[in-house]
């Protein structure tokens, strides 16, 4: 069966060996005294948006690119291009070489050296992303829109109902002898419901993400969006004061992602982390254990290799509240006098590697959501936050975000609240953890999330 929407997809998509041989061939061109790292990527994507019972848009695309690092006498040059054509790759290599001379010499700048750690067997590729007909993906988006619209009589509008998938493959080869490849698929549905009563409207967002289209839970995404929109109807500003805050798992995931940026060895070595110089100290409540483990297949960040081609491994960062260490790529590790934790990450072929977490998990506690609400009694339950990029400073630790959610009274959800902020410092929040939920949700992004109760945050409202 032919599927015209997939006409642009690479004919050999799924077969990484082609990318590996390309990367290896280019890396083999290293001159004497020169280190060369070649990262090649290709991917296919489909995005469908449904609106009002129709397909609003259907985008299909195949893209590919190369990023080349050249290091010579401790100087690094980089270039990238959005194509894998031979002449473009050759131009990119020449440009990366030309850029070397402009960097400051630093003997610690070098490629990763193979460290003998065997790679875990990580299978996060679901072929059905490529074999499922586009018509079926379109139907998923339409069905999601129908489910969201019909879930509650107060749903006025479904402003977006999307299906999206990506099949991505990458290979890396270096003159230091590293050859690694990976491939992954991810499918997601997301929907935004607008609930209304009288002149008032409230919105709620729901989604589900999996490796293949058949396991997507459309009902869950639709119900989540609807519930979040409807329960905000009638929301008002709350009075300012200090209170316990209970975070929804998605918000916890966002919070952990911010904390993870201060656990980057690169941030530490450059004096941009609130955790610098605190290894061995209690930086969090004793209940807090934080592990970054990209070999955990449940995580969306699961990967056999890091962005420099070393085998990913489990790194314990905080154990029972005590800071154990940081995540490093090879350059930040050398600067810190340690070895890479195989935590190099990169934002695609257009950027060089840096150090970061991929699969952070806060060790679950013993209570579910309802039990945590009962245990705290009075609190603000936060279903979503805004302004994370504008009001959180991971260097100083200052934390101030817009919040909406529900008051918790006598251990139960009470009136909805909007247009307030919650504020504290990241340092104080980590020390003030009251309860960690057992309801872990594996979410796209660098961290999983669960219900989390934090004591004594400032609520600013009227």
């Amino acid at each position, binding site marked *: 069966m032919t599927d015209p929407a997939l006409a642009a997809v690479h004919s050999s998509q799924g077969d990484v060996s082609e990318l590996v041989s390309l990367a290896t061939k280019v890396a083999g061109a290293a001159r004497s005294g020169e280190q060369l790292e070649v990262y090649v990527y290709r991917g296919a994507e489909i995005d469908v948006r449904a609106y009002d019972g129709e397909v609003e848009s259907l985008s299909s695309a195949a893209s590919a690119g190369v990023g080349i690092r050249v290091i010579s006498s401790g100087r690094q040059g980089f270039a*990238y291009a959005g194509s894998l054509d031979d002449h473009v790759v050759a131009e990119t290599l020449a440009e990366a070489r030309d850029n070397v001379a402009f960097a*400051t010499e630093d003997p610690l700048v070098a490629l990763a050296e193979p460290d003998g750690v065997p790679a875990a067997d990580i299978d996060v590729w679901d072929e059905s992303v490529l074999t499922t007909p586009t018509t079926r993906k379109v139907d998923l988006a339409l069905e999601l829109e129908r489910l969201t619209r019909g879930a509650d009589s107060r749903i006025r509008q479904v402003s977006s109902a999307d299906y999206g998938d990506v099949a991505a493959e990458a290979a890396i080869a270096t003159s230091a002898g590293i050859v690694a490849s990976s491939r992954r698929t991810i499918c997601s549905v997301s929907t935004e419901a607008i609930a209304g009563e009288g002149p008032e409207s409230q919105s709620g967002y729901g989604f589900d993400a999996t490796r293949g289209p058949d396991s997507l839970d459309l009902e869950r995404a639709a119900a989540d969006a609807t519930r979040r929109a409807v329960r905000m109807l009638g929301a008002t500003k709350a009075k300012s004061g200090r209170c316990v805050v209970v975070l929804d798992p998605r918000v916890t995931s966002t919070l952990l992602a911010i904390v993870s940026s201060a656990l980057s060895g690169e941030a530490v070595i450059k004096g941009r982390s609130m955790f610098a110089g605190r290894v061995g100290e209690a930086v969090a409540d004793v209940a807090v254990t934080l592990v970054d483990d990209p070999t955990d297949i449940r995580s969306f960040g699961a990967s056999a290799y890091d962005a420099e081609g070393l085998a990913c491994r489990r790194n314990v960062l905080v154990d029972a509240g005590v800071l154990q260490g940081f995540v490093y790529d090879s350059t930040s590790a050398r600067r810190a006098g340690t070895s890479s934790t195989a935590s190099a990450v990169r934002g695609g072929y257009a950027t060089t590697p840096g150090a970061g977490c991929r699969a952070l998990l806060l060790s679950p506690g013993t209570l579910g959501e309802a039990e945590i609400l009962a245990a705290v009694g009075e609190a603000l339950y936060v279903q979503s936050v805004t302004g994370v990029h504008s009001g959180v400073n991971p260097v100083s630790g200052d934390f*101030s975000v817009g919040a909406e959610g529900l008051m918790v009274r006598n251990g139960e959800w009470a009136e909805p609240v909007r247009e307030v*902020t919650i504020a504290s410092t990241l340092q104080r929040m980590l020390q003030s953890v009251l309860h960690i939920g057992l309801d872990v949700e594996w979410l796209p992004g660098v961290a999983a999330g669960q219900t989390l109760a934090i004591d004594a945050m400032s609520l600013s409202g009227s």
Partner: protein
Amino acid sequence: MGQVTDPSSAALVEPPVVERVLAAATARGAEFAEVFAEDRRGISAFLDDGKVEELSSGRDRGAGVRVVVGETTGYAHTADLSEAGLLAAAEAAAAVAREGGAPQKVVSVQARSVPRHSPVEVYPEDVAKARKIELLGRADETARAEGGAISQVSVNYADSRRRLLVANTDGVLVSDDQVRSRFFVSCVAVGDTGMQTGYQSEAFTVGFEMFEVVDVEETARKAARRALVKLSARPAPSGELPVVLARGSGGVLFHEACGHGLEADHIVKDASVYVGQVGAKVASPLVTLVDDGTVPREWGTSSIDDEGRPAQRNVLIEQGELTDYMWDFLRARKEGRSSSGNGRRQSYRHLPMVRMTNTFLLNGDEDPEEIVAQTPSGVFVAQLGGGQVNTTTGDFVFGTTEAYLIENGHVTEPLRDANLIGNGPEVLRRIDAVAGDFAMMPGTCGKDGQSVPVGCGQPTLRVSAITVGGTAGD
């Protein structure tokens, strides 16, 4: 002018090829088809920790084909600008027209020229890489010299040149050549109370001549002073207070409080508090708000939008009364009107949507110092970071990166960073003083996963009450 002799000014795709691709895109019965071709080159140089860490060069070129059938849009993109590559993308995009039936259109396009609002004097590729690198070290040295407490400095220089070709079945064929330059300094200061940060960003739709007006040393000093001053900052207040926003970055308030809510894609889906409000008083009479993609040199300026529509000036709010929304091709077509030149996209890999360009509040006639003097107590915001809005409810936040207390009509102690939160229509009505000291600031606007350069601007103004999300009182 440089662009006349520039060999790279050859058409990205030849007109006869464009015509055949558009015809193919309509083969299954599409009513409208468009080719968007883009060739982007850029250089970015980073200095961090006292070292030039890397000079990075990038090249990205490709085209997207868009097909519209009824209410449905099909889109496909390719990095292959050959006729075969473009025809494959056209076929993929046209697949949304499942039934077909209508005959393939004969398409004829006519090249037209558009005025350039930001003529380029010095193309970045004509400037030696060494000259760009040299700027980094000067900024680093200057920032560190501002005070011993400055513990870390990072500096970024970036330039980009984006050549575009947009053609569609309405016969449009236009090109643009957009050159942008940016310089960014970020500092960390360390003191008894821990670490603080400060940054300063300069960005314009110009070439390397930007550095005739942007003083890299002054940029570095501003960033360093912000970090240093916050070392003695106290926690921001918590609760509703009068807030004075200094000229420039306070424009983020309008971007969030009403800018996004006036984008027609939110309006047609009933997902904005401003639905049905044209002609209504939505703001204080002191508010006249404009979105204008033609302002020379500004960060959100271009000759055409990413649908080939010439950039234009649109008055959104006039003396408090809502005059119009912002429109792209699709949303305008639905309403039987024309686009306002606000159809933008991040790259050829993305579908266009309604976006702001340069959005700003016009001058009032008060004196900025008087506004502070007439504020007994409150917060003075000297620099804002970003913001975010829920267009459905109108609730929005924006963050301070340099702010002070106002006590007895005087700017006094520095405050730690915090977000402010308000509701768009309520806050617009509470603007009770506007000065005459207009300034613009560059920013990056994110929407639905796409980032585009935008400008924000305003004179110094006061909001009589808005919630400040600090922790003071703990």
